[in-house]
């Protein structure tokens, strides 16, 4: 008797989206980081609930820079989407162009972030309100800085190689993480800038 076989040699050597292990790892990372964001937000609301006045003793942060950065972050989704779509067509020139555009946006929102910190109107050691506002903004800042750096490494790789077809999956998943970093900003923006105004 002969043993039947399943020959996997003809199968493709990479695949996009949820077929790839990289997608699942990225989702796992998003779940971890998302939980962290959720818990810092919960801590903010908890401390807010412990204080009769909010923001206690300080003016709310100035709206200008935070709002500007929200616009830049949301706008960065456009080149991000083009880079993702180019990757999923194995279009190397397209990937190169759109990732460079993404890097321009990432530079912009990292620079504007400095002005956000300078306009919080409170220091981290002023009181618990200051502590949690700085932590919330600081925690998101570590994400935009690290996202900037890992996208930069990937962009450089796409220009100088060595490359294989499966690197396009890396670009596609990097774009997913980019969306995560942008979307988590929206509730944080609302909390930092508007919770002290409506309360």
């Amino acid at each position, binding site marked *: 008797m002969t043993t039947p076989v*399943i020959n996997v040699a003809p199968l493709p050597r*990479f695949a996009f989206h949820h077929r790839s*292990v990289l997608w699942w790892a990225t989702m796992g990372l998003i779940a971890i980081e998302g939980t962290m964001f959720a818990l810092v937000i919960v801590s903010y609301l908890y401390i807010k609930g412990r204080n009769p006045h909010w923001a206690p003793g300080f003016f709310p942060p100035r709206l200008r820079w935070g709002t500007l950065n929200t616009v830049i972050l949301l706008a960065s989704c456009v080149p991000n989407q083009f880079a993702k779509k180019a990757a999923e067509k194995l279009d190397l020139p397209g990937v190169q162009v759109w990732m460079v555009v993404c890097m321009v946006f990432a530079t912009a929102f990292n620079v504007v972030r400095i002005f956000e910190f300078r306009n919080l109107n409170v220091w981290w050691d002023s009181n618990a309100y200051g502590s949690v506002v700085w932590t919330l903004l600081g925690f998101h800042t570590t994400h935009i800085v690290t996202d900037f750096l890992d996208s930069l490494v990937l962009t450089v790789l796409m220009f100088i190689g060595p*490359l294989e*077809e499966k690197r396009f999956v890396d670009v596609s998943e990097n774009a997913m993480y980019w969306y995560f970093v942008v979307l988590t900003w929206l509730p944080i923006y609302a909390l930092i800038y508007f919770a002290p105004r409506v309360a």
Partner: protein
Amino acid sequence: MTSPHLEPHLLEAERRQLELTWGRRPGLFGWLADTNHKSLGLRFIFTAFFFFFLAGLLAAAMRIQLAVPNNTFLSADLYNQFFTIHGTTMMFLFGVPVMLGMGIYLVPLEVGARAIAFPRLCAFGYWMFLFGGLFLYTMFALNVGPDVGWFSYPPLAGPEYGYGKRADVWAQLITFSELSSLVVAICIGVTFLKMRAPGMSLNRVPLFSWAMLVVSVMIIFAMPAVMISSTCLIMDRLVSTHFYNQAEGGDPILWQHLFWFFGHPEVYIIFLPGVGMISPIITTFARRPVHGYLVMVLSQIATAFIGFGVWVHHMFATGLPQLGQSFFSASSMMIVVPTALQLFCWIATLWTGRLHFKPPLLYILGFFFIFVIGGLTGVMMASVPLDLQIHDTFFIVAHFHYVLIGGAVFPLLGGLYYWYPKMFGRMLNDTVGTIGFWVLFIGFNMTFFPMHILGLMGMPRRIYTYPPELGWGGLNMLATLGAGLIAVSLTLYLINILVSLRSGRVAGPNPWAASTLEWSTSSPPPPYNYEPGPTVSGHEPLWEGPPDQPVVVGLATHKREVLITHVLDAEPDHVTEFPTDSVWPFWTAIATTIFFIGSIFTPWAVIYGAIPVFVTMVAWFWPRKGLSPGELRRRIERGEHTPLEQVL
């Protein structure tokens, strides 16, 4: 169809080539660079037991101190450090990592994969765990051991009372160990979901692997809470934030919420892998499939969900609103239901099976006795009025040792005994194993049962001594003598392991005539696990697989190719190439260690320390082979690429 791949001489040649492709390079660097899941799993297990041994010594010293009233064997300050480091080690450096080590070793084998997903990340997880543990014990040796309890409550741990660096050492150890657990959770979870052998649909996955998936998901959602809270604690201490400072609008109770939102799921993170080991052992030694497979899986998932909704029962004494307490009281009682369902399924399996009382099964029967007692005292404490009476007494100490040693250590010792032949190719000595089990069983109950009574008599936790007229001396002496028996039995276990490495009976692939895939490959397995790759058509593939069960062929032998399958039904999807061994995860872990340790002394380490971390990570990720961008582009323009409809 027949295949030339299965001609014996060709298969032999393929296996020799695979041995070279997947094997470890020689020398120290080969050892540091190793990313094989079996080496990493054993390193996790070995290192965790090393820390278990150290924490056991601390426990022995505490038992000696408490054996008689007014003892002066340990000073109050040393006693504080001892119980803190004992608890911290058992939870963070033994309980979680040893279970993850079992998962790293076994899950890829059980699902029929060549490797663990993201092997370099898994290696990084190991180094972070090792360096975190060494960091804790080095600081302890320098008299900077944490002394504020394994849950490190502010304000005692805050800047006002916790002077020096002791509380910072605790908080940063957490960062090390949770980072390690989180990355390993990703590796195990993705292996489970995407790398199962064809045919292993979700309703055919072995129950230990299911438990490890559930644990991975729990780690992903629980561990961030303690990372956040301990980071805030370090910031309170280092840069004067006020998270836990009541005077400036913070709240120490916030710490307790965040800590226990992690801390209770943590119990299940340690317990569920034990549950996962029980089912295969019972299956093998009762000679029948486990009763109620679906109930088992759903109970594990239900435990994970409910486990996130019980944390406040650790905080009944903090004066929270009564309505909230009632909710958590109810959920704490509810979590008994899925655990009881599993117990009933196991009893049904044992009842209808033909039992072989080998040591692994004895450890599982020991689990039944001890864990049920621990579970029942747990139900008692879910009741708020009773909890307030016994809060912070030795009753609690008795309860959680019954739950954790009964629920995790007994199954673990049974599991190690069961899988030892697979790991090392030799059998342990059953006589020594049986004697060791009974000594442990008696010693354990002698040590911890009296603590229930001591707690009811009013003896608080965390006191370094007590006056004779309180009448606690007799039971404490009994407990200390029991601890001596525990030490004897663990020494027997260790001797059995060491002696059997050389002189144990040769095991062969399947010494227990067990049913799951890992028993189909040689003991110990080759670096590539399987060739040809297995497929399955049921829960117990080695018992019920038809003689013409297909095998998987066609993976390259000169590079590390693995088969990726669909999540639900494990249909073959595509093939991906895994990276070679690399020493860069080790260097990244070194850089991260410098970053972590530096940042308890100066906030600037967060900036300077990040630079070497970035550099080593780039070196880790940068591909070593491939085409230049121009070449790739020309190939794609010529149409020489994988058709898009196959990859989207």
